[in-house]
């Protein structure tokens, strides 16, 4: 069975803008570059698109109506601008999948455009405080204490994990080193220089125990996918990539004050994913695990059941499990830690590259099934895609 109720759905096209550090093309241009290349990659035209979904944070992505008008797409049968809450770019993809699966539309575009390199809007920390019902955060009770959005909450989770579950500093470092090993094989990646463990351990603390090299790499860029029915995708030129299953979860819906602090919705999301999936853990050939912070990767691996809670460090086996040539390659694009923080859809786009068999130097041999996740805490999603 498949976890997408209704019609069987495929990922028909993927597209990227350039990924920029130190250059700031307008978000409209980035979005056009990614969406037009995704539509062309699918072998479709903008006129055939009848659904558009995007995820944004504080207005960084252009809205769907602008994209519709600019691409010259006529009337949309389904659309949505998702922001604030939501599992980053995958939220838009899942809306697109459900819209196509239900029959609401036939060809849906999903995109995420992010402007986060310094000189754009800086970081989430600079965004104005929202009213209490208007944000996942509670800035009124955090900002006066010098606690700005995500990074301190990750620092607190990582500290508690270290005290409660043990492990080693290097466990997090293996994630950082792995990202660069894969990025070295990805011309699009912004951080392609290999890292040593000493460099990782020597990087400055941001919110101790979180180091600079535990954090992903802010960039300006856009990534897009085209979703359509499997039946329609079969008539197109690209290899058929089927959405086997997907799941979303929120846990207690809170980033910092809740009692499911450590993992938020991860376990529920994993339970839903595996109960929806037509495939099992042993079927998975590669992982695309959201790596806003190295900590999040360890927690996702455990929540998805690839090892027991607290054992991700051992499971990594010094990085050998997930490195190029490993038994379960992880973040083969370099992920957000090294390809750049495209904020979600890039994990799915990379999986599609791999499953099509056109990932170049970083191709995972005979990749048939990929599992990708997005975001963390109270806004998570996961998806399994497979080559038909």
């Amino acid at each position, binding site marked *: 069975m498949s976890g997408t109720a209704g019609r069987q759905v495929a990922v028909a096209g993927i597209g990227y803008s350039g990924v920029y550090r130190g250059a700031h093309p307008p978000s409209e241009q980035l979005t056009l570059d990614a969406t037009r290349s995704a539509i062309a990659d699918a072998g479709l035209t903008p006129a055939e698109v009848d659904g558009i979904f995007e995820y944004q944070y504080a207005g960084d992505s252009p809205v769907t109506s602008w994209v519709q008008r600019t691409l010259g797409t006529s009337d949309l049968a389904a659309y949505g601008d998702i922001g604030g809450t939501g599992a980053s770019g995958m939220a838009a993809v899942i809306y697109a999948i459900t819209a196509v699966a239900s029959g609401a539309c036939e060809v849906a575009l999903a995109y995420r455009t992010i402007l986060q390199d310094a000189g754009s809007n800086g*970081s989430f*920390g600079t965004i104005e*405080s929202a*009213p*209490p019902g208007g944000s996942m955060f*509670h*800035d*009124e*009770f*955090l*900002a*006066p*204490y*010098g*606690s*700005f959005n995500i*990074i*301190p909450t990750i*620092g*607190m*989770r*990582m*500290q*508690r994990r270290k*005290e*409660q579950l043990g492990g080693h500093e290097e466990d997090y470092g293996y994630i950082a080193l792995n990202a660069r090993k894969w990025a070295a094989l990805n011309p699009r990646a912004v951080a392609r220089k290999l890292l040593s463990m000493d460099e990782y351990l020597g990087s*400055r*603390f*941001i*919110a*101790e*125990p*979180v180091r600079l090299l535990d954090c992903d790499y802010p960039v300006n860029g856009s990534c897009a996918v085209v979703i359509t029915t499997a039946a329609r995708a079969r008539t197109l030129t690209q290899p058929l990539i089927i959405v086997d299953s997907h799941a979303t979860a929120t846990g207690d819906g809170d980033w*910092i*004050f*809740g*009692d499911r*602090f450590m993992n938020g919705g991860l376990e529920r999301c994993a339970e839903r994913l595996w109960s929806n999936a037509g495939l099992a853990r042993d079927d998975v050939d590669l992982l695309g695990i959201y790596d806003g912070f190295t900590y999040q990767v360890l927690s996702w691996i455990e929540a998805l059941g690839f090892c027991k809670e607290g054992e991700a460090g051992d499971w990594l086996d010094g990085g050998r499990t997930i490195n190029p040539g490993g038994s379960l390659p992880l973040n083969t694009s370099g992920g957000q830690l090294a390809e750049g923080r495209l904020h979600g859809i890039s994990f799915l786009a990379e999986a599609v590259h791999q499953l099509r068999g056109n990932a170049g130097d970083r191709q995972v041999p005979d990749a048939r099934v990929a599992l990708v996740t997005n975001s963390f805490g109270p806004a998570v999603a996961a998806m399994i895609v497979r080559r038909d």
Partner: protein
Amino acid sequence: MSESTAYVSRPRPLATVYSRFFWDGARRGELLIQHCTACSRFAHPPGPICPSCGSQEIAPVAVSGRGTLHSFCLIHHVFHPAFKDQVPYFVARVELQEQKGLFLVANLRNCPRDGARVGLPLRVLFETVGEDVLPQFEPALSFETVAP
């Protein structure tokens, strides 16, 4: 912009209709938490109803200010220019003793860098910052006593 002449104030707590009691209480040296008259559960941050039972019969109640350190981090990075002279400083998640799963976030004060650990008993203190008073926490016992 010259950093030596620019003055950037710390973000102030912008109280809402739901939370004004919390900051007003702090000015009087009281830690007030939203409490449900119907089900006796506390909730924080405050809101329009009790998230445990849905009742609108909610009122601020003074709590002991005792709790334990659920987790913490030590901020080194200057996320906001007003904290340039504060780094490094602790941000802590404190579980109040009145109810399991009732958390506040504050700075951990009067604690050496290597003295913070999960489970450390804490007590509230009130810190004046400009026109506001912030509930903060410190080790409940003098540090020599609780040091491992």
